[in-house]
């Protein structure tokens, strides 16, 4: 069991959340992007061992999306920030 700190509701059971995968993926301009760039945008993900910026959804609570920086090796949660914010510098 893991507790996730929702920025609205506070610490909640991880089962209340849905992970939306890697955060901060920018959509290239489809008019100018090459096939390789477009494929990279659609399919390729970082999948790091260590710090990872992710999108999470509090599905069984306030039903809000937010960002979370998490260590994929230890599950340590480093930062939680709003869905409109960019990744925190220090934990990058």
């Amino acid at each position, binding site marked *: *069991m893991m507790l996730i700190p929702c920025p609205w509701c506070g610490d909640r059971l991880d*089962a209340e959340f849905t992970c939306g995968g890697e955060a901060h993926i920018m959509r290239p301009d489809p008019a100018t992007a090459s096939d390789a760039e477009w494929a990279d945008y659609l399919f390729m993900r970082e999948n790091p061992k260590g710090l990872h910026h992710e999108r999470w959804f509090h599905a069984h609570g*306030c039903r809000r999306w937010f960002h979370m920086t998490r260590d994929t090796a230890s599950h340590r949660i480093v930062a939680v920030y709003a869905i409109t914010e960019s990744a925190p510098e220090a934990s990058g």
Partner: protein
Amino acid sequence: MAEAWQRQSPLARRSPMDDDTGAGLAMTEREFLAKITVRGKVADDAIRDALGIALPGEPNTACSGKDHAILWLGPDEWLVVGPPDTEKELVSTLATALPDAAVIDVTEGYATIRLGGPLAREVLSMGTPLDLHPREFAAGAATRTLFARTTVILHKISDDPVFDIHVERSQAEYLWTWLETASRPYRDALR
């Protein structure tokens, strides 16, 4: 709203669990409470004028008056609970008062179970890791959360304690029997 003659609670065939042992654990249904979802821009003044109670602005809280309660469900979402058979007038009152919000009657979509007594917290703690100690979850606290693998809206009415649990209609009988089962060891021990 369903026609009165067609209307049946999903818990109609369940008998209330009364505080017959002196154990202090009672479970009843609060049948056909009016329940309205409000989403969007809601002015605190407009709610005060319409229902005479404040709009809860903080997560995990509710504001209650004589007849109504407003539960915070999200940054732009609330549940308004009122007396049985008032949903029609409640919808029109709220829709008039809140022109920038969606006002949806969800009365028939939810059933409400009331669990009360000194052992209520013990029983509820088996279904959720939320800290239900009055220090953390005092009277007036409310939240949508995962409880016994179903989504509920949990509202602590008083510190006696009394809890109201709003649950989707299709899950109501499951949750009722789950709570009955969870209560059994406490009731047996005190018999």
